[in-house]
């Protein structure tokens, strides 16, 4: 079978523009052959090269004294957590593959991000996931949702990594464009950091893991175009199938091998598989690499060089070994019954040379291929729809007549309802470190000796550490105001950490948007990156890496701009770990922050869950987040937590104060079918002159509900005052109902009913 001729049509089919093709000719000094064309097309896809987004990514804060490996340097960033320990973490999307095959698409997304983490030499210890779908009333959406959740569960559970937190949103804009962002965090000692560099001329290059098949051919390129019936059909031909069992073995073997010092460089084969791993490792080391495809284990007969180079078969790694240490690779991979093959060597040519049975099938300067993809400054234009959004006022929206009914509507809305239908399918406790499981604001895990790459047997004992994390993104806010909305995304993640007692260490983001060639979409991207960067700076949570997923649109339109942010923080002492539910009868309930932002003409109702669900309006300027005030709030909250008085802390987010209070009353789950319900008597009559719906359901930023023992209430108010944060006593805990009294009306709900609506909403929608 001979390779097709390079025609303009073929070039276009590979997603390359005529200018890009010229650039390729310039780099090679000749026409590329078919295999080379394929190699350039995947490496220069948005997914691998960030050609449309790189200028924006440069604006993120990426430095802090604690950062050991920064954004863009390697497969994941690494942050110092003290005592010689460090964490590696990153988020990545698998949106398009999940749209084509939800179960395997999501599963391989989890597998891919886990590989990114152990490639750094770290032991993956937990993962989190951020998911978005259309509305559950559609059977097709239910199929995607249940498939994605089952796929994540399948991979994570079998691999043995706890999935400890996440978020799920349901909105029409994701219908046909589901978002699956997976995050993984790993632990290592400073000296255990591994590098993805092909160092040492003459060193042998090993391929380890299962044989290469035709799966996921050119998946990176597929992810870099709109999702159409044709593009999906192409990809269906060879869906990637995940094998978590294999990955667990590959990881254990790699960590065991890394402990021997035999490894000069290591990189996973993720997007763009063998292509990306060879040219990137060579580019990082400033070396060349030569491989022979005939030596690459192959699953399917008669695979062409093009197919082998572009395959995205899962669970494969490329390892560069110090010459003379080959036997160790063989010993360890044989112990784990894993396939391996020596496929090439590191050279001094600076070129990526690919041979197949003696014939040279690709010869490309590695650095130019990996690092010199074209960069585009796309045109940006403020979207038309924002005019109407800004013009919208509350004038035509009548205040609520049925606050209790509204609360029930909101708690039963799948976006706000408990996500237990999801996280009970995930093993969230394996590894014996889940101190705060899903169901509170941020998850908290304990790092202990066996969190390290090697068991720790015989090694010096480590101190236990507590790491908190959460992923957030209210994409409706971002849609309604990309800059301000993006700030609140980061603020919410940071607030969730603060509620758990943690101080941010860093963050990782996943930019999910529509087609960047549309100036309005590029504007959304640009403006929201501006907001993210500013907020990450404010909270001292530099970005250590992330992922860009553009082209999330189908013929029905683009998704809402969705920059998900996963933030990771540290908790010094176990006593500081705080959960969101009320603890004891008779405790005082306080609000830290202003009950309502009176400077906001929308009173916090713009873009709110309340307007969406009760009034079917997805509009209005979303609530602003004043980063300075938000930061003061977090500082104050943490210092109160450190002083030992805070029994529970829960931030106000979707659904506002009433939903937050209800969640404080109903969200503690003791065991299967055994919630612990603790009521509250709330009096808001001190807050006059505010519409009842804004008071109860407005989403004014920078607010946290805490509970303290009654005798401490006055002291806490005084302390808050000193710390410069508004605070008020709202009421006290007790009873079996949530009762709220305000000037404009009252609300009274039985907790059993609220709990049932909230806990079972998704299960009912899926039945």
């Amino acid at each position, binding site marked *: 079978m001979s390779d097709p001729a390079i025609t303009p049509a073929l070039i276009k089919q590979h997603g390359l523009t005529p200018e890009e093709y010229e650039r390729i000719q310039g780099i090679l000094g000749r026409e590329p052959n078919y295999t080379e064309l394929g190699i350039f097309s995947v490496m220069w896809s948005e997914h691998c090269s960030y050609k449309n987004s790189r200028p924006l990514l440069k604006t993120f804060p990426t430095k802090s004294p604690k950062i050991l490996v920064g954004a863009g340097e390697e497969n994941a960033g690494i942050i110092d957590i003290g005592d010689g320990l460090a964490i590696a973490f990153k988020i990545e999307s698998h949106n398009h593959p999940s749209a084509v095959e939800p179960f395997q698409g999501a599963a391989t997304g989890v597998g891919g991000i886990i590989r990114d983490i152990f490639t750094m030499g770290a032991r993956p210890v937990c993962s989190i996931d951020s998911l978005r779908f259309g509305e559950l009333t559609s059977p097709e959406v239910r199929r995607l949702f249940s498939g994605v959740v089952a796929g994540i569960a399948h991979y994570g*559970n079998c691999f043995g990594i706890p999935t400890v937190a996440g978020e799920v949103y349901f909105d029409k804009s994701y219908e046909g464009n589901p978002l699956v962002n997976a995050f993984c965090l790993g632990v290592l000692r400073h000296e255990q950091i591994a590098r993805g560099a092909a160092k040492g001329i003459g060193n042998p290059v090993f391929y380890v893991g299962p044989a290469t098949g035709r799966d996921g051919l050119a998946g990176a390129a597929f992810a870099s175009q709109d999702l159409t019936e044709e593009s999906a059909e192409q990809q269906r031909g060879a869906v990637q199938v995940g094998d978590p069992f294999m990955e667990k073995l590959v990881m254990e073997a790699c960590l065991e091998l890394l402990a021997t010092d035999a490894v000069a460089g290591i990189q996973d084969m993720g997007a763009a598989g063998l292509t990306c791993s060879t040219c990137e490792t060579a580019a990082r080391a400033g070396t060349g690499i030569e491989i022979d495809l005939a030596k690459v284990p192959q699953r399917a007969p008669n695979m062409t060089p093009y197919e082998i180079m572009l395959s995205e078969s899962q669970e494969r790694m490329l390892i560069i070994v110090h010459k003379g240490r080959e036997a160790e690779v063989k010993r360890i991979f044989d112990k784990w019954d894993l396939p391996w093959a020596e496929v090439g060597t590191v050279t001094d040519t600076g070129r990526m040379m690919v041979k197949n049975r003696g014939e040279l099938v690709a010869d490309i300067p590695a650095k130019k291929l990996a690092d010199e993809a074209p960069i585009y400054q796309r045109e940006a234009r403020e979207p038309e729809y924002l005019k109407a959004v800004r013009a919208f006022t509350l004038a035509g929206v009548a205040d609520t007549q049925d606050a209790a009914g509204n609360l029930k509507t909101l708690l039963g809305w799948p976006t706000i309802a408990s996500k237990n239908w999801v996280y*009970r399918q995930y093993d969230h406790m394996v590894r014996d470190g889940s101190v705060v499981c899903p169901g509170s604001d941020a998850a908290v895990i304990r790092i202990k000796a066996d969190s390290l790459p090697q068991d720790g047997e015989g090694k010096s004992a480590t101190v236990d550490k507590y790491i908190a994390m959460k992923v957030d993104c209210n994409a409706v806010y971002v849609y309604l105001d990309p800059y301000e909305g993006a700030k609140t995304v980061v603020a919410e993640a940071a607030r969730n950490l603060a509620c758990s007692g943690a101080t941010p260490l860093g963050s990782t983001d996943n930019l999910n948007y529509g087609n960047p060639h549309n100036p309005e979409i590029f504007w959304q991207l640009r403006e929201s990156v501006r907001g993210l960067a500013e907020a990450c700076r404010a909270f001292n949570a530099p970005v250590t890496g992330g992922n860009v997923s553009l082209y999330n649109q189908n013929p029905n339109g683009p998704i809402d701009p969705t920059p998900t942010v996963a933030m990771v923080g540290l908790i010094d002492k176990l006593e500081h770990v705080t959960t969101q539910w009320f603890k004891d009868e008779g405790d005082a309930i306080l609000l830290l922050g202003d009950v309502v932002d009176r400077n906001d003409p929308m009173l916090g109702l713009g873009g709110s869950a309340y307007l969406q669900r009760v009034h079917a309006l997805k509009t209005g300027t979303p609530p602003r987040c004043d980063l300075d005030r938000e930061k003061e709030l977090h500082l104050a909250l943490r210092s109160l937590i450190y002083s030992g008085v805070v029994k529970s802390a829960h931030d106000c987010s979707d659904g506002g104060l009433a939903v937050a209070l209800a969640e404080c009353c109903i969200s503690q789950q003791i065991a299967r079918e055994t919630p612990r319900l603790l009521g509250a008597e709330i009096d808001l009559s001190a807050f006059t002159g505010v519409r009842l719906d804004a008071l109860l359901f407005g989403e004014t930023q920078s607010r946290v509900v805490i509970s303290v023992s009654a005798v401490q209430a006055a002291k806490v108010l005084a302390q808050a005052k000193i710390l410069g944060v508004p605070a008020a006593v709202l009421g006290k805990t007790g009873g079996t109902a949530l009762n709220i009294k305000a000037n404009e009306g009252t609300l009274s709900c039985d907790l059993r009913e609220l709990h049932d609506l909230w806990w079972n909403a998704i299960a009912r929608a899926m039945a």
Partner: protein
Amino acid sequence: MNFAVLQFPASNCDQDAVHVLRNVLGHSARLLWHKETSLGNADAVIVPGGFSYGDYLRTGAIARFSPVMQAVQAFAAKGGPVLGICNGFQILCEAGLLPGALIRNRSLQFRCEHVFVKAATANSPFTSQIPDGKVLRIPIAHGEGCYFADAETIARLKAQNQILWQYADAQGELTDVANPNGSVENIAGICNESRNVAGLMPHPERASEGLLGSADGRLIFESLIHALESKSVAKAA
């Protein structure tokens, strides 16, 4: 005491078991690779949870043919105590060391959550230290934990007091809603006729420290340690 914690390809609760035995309970515990043919100086064997061989074909079906399982068979035959947790329970059933089988949860979904478990008898090396009437709060995490055996076997298990743990509600009632997977008789764990081999689906190693929300699982390990120390189980060496 010396514990051997078996390690199959894709065991993933092996380190958790070692952690609890070693760091929480202060005993010696080591991982034993599935290709080993001897248990060394082990006083007791833990077959840990996880997804040995990816749970492909059937849970536990492949692991039970590992070389180490022959040694476990011999150890158990001599009266040595063996405890299987989750996947370990499945492996022991597949190996014929325990009767019955574990099939797909009734919900067809994987379930991870805390459940209440009641010891049905104190008469075993795995339950002797559980106070009468105490309801343990322990997590489960499995997709195939529905215990099944034919009516005859169930009758025998009951007659011989081999049912060790049952899913219950907070009050200790064996209700249907308390049963997370559809197990017959709410069975969460059983032992063999000679009472030295036991298996259970819940994870006591995940409930052995207060900071993880419950320390009730320790009672199971402490029962075993008590039995070993008082030599009420054979020291098979």
